[in-house]
């Protein structure tokens, strides 16, 4: 038996859960899919006093369309999102990215809320949440608030949620017709956390110049990194190969400051970021212009 002993709670409602979190504070841990939390418990890096299992809370499992947005309950399994026709239709970027997350056995348990809340700097979903301008619905026993994805990620494995708060749902605006999107990453092995990844969403204005662009990297900072300088360079430009190349170079040189680890040094990560930026911007622009499905 590897994990340290804990008290186990299996609430059936959000209200019960919030009361438990209120009581335990820092000493209580929510158990979603367990695919990130249980490994750390098996290593005894995490030793919560109480484990609050969300798997029996039916109201947290849902996927629906509301006001042109995708609404996804925190406990919705990653595999359910991967297979959802609704997701494919209104947020195709999310659909396309899901298979990059771990392996089928992990996605069968792993949840959307767990991945978003875990805030791993090399995870796909936090970067996607920013690129897609998603919002998180967060509650505590006494309060409720929406947090924009941009303000949700504050550091390494750190969100702006308080210990007594939990994530209930994420709202992702649907991609309008005329927008283009793409995601790519480089991992040493299929399903492993990537060394670097990039997501792009592009809207073309009348006349075919770039109206809006969002380029977000994973794996090159303590949280997902938005390439703001690259976006500034692109807005108002025609999506030519030269403009995309210049913006990708700027993204790799100016927008990120990667540190190295045993998987990849800083120079290699910077190189990957430039290459991936160019690929996703090119694909997103082509899709926005209707050249590619």
């Amino acid at each position, binding site marked *: *038996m*590897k*994990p*340290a*002993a*804990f*008290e*186990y709670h*299996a609430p059936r409602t959000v209200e019960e859960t919030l009361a438990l979190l209120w009581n335990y504070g820092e000493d209580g841990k929510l158990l979603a899919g*367990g*695919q990130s939390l*249980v*490994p750390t418990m*098996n*290593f005894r890096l995490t030793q919560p006093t109480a*484990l609050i*299992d969300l*798997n029996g809370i039916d109201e947290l499992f849902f996927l629906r369309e509301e006001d042109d947005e995708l609404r996804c309950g925190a406990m919705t399994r990653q*595999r359910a999102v991967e297979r959802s026709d609704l997701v494919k239709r209104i947020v195709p970027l999310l659909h396309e990215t899901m*298979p990059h997350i*771990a*392996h*089928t*056995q*992990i996605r*069968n*348990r792993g949840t959307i809320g767990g991945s978003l809340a875990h805030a791993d700097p090399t995870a796909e979903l936090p970067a996607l949440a920013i690129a897609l301008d998603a919002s998180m619905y967060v509650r505590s026993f006494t309060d409720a608030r929406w947090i924009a994805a941009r303000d949700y990620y504050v550091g390494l494995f750190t969100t702006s949620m308080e210990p007594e708060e939990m994530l209930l749902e994420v709202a992702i605006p649907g991609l309008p017709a005329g927008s283009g999107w793409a995601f790519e990453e480089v991992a040493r*092995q*299929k*399903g492993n956390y990537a060394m670097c990844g990039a997501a792009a969403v592009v809207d073309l204005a009348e006349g075919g110049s770039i109206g809006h662009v969002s380029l977000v990297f994973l794996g090159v900072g303590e949280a997902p990194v938005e390439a703001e300088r690259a976006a500034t360079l692109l807005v108002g430009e025609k999506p030519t190969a030269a403009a995309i190349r210049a913006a990708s170079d700027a993204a790799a040189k100016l927008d990120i400051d990667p540190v190295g680890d045993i998987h990849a040094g800083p120079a290699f990560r910077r190189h990957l970021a430039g290459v991936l930026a160019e690929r996703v911007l090119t694909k997103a622009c082509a899709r926005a212009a209707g050249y590619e499905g």
Partner: protein
Amino acid sequence: MEQTISVSVNGRQYERSVEPRLLLSDFLRHEIGLSGTHVGCEHGVCGACTVLMDSAAVRSCLLFAVQANGRDVTTVEGLDGGHEELHPIQHGFWEKHGLQCGFCTPGILMTLVPFLEENPDPTEDEIREVLSGNICRCTGYQKIVEAVQLSARLIKEKPA
């Protein structure tokens, strides 16, 4: 504090009193003596511990036994459905030498059961992709891929 759970494993109901921190993998191996489920890493990486819970392939080292309360678990011991005959996937692995030491094999077989149900005609790329969640240190995977291809054929030929 121990908790009483009741889990159906390979069609048989087991009732046990367990600590909440007991992993499902340890429950299967130590509490009910089904040691076919292997434990390689205990952090979700190797795939050796893969079992089916309510028909979905999952890591038993990342689940607590209390979470399997009231659920249906299938392990490699349940593959032949209590008969003496090998499951077509086991047959495919036997015939094509899809294993050497066999440590990874139970997890791979359990990953393949739902995979081949959903993808009766998988491409080699699809096979390699689904195998990405199971580490094998012996075979180099080539023979495993061939075994999966044969298994898919055997399942189709099997009289219903």
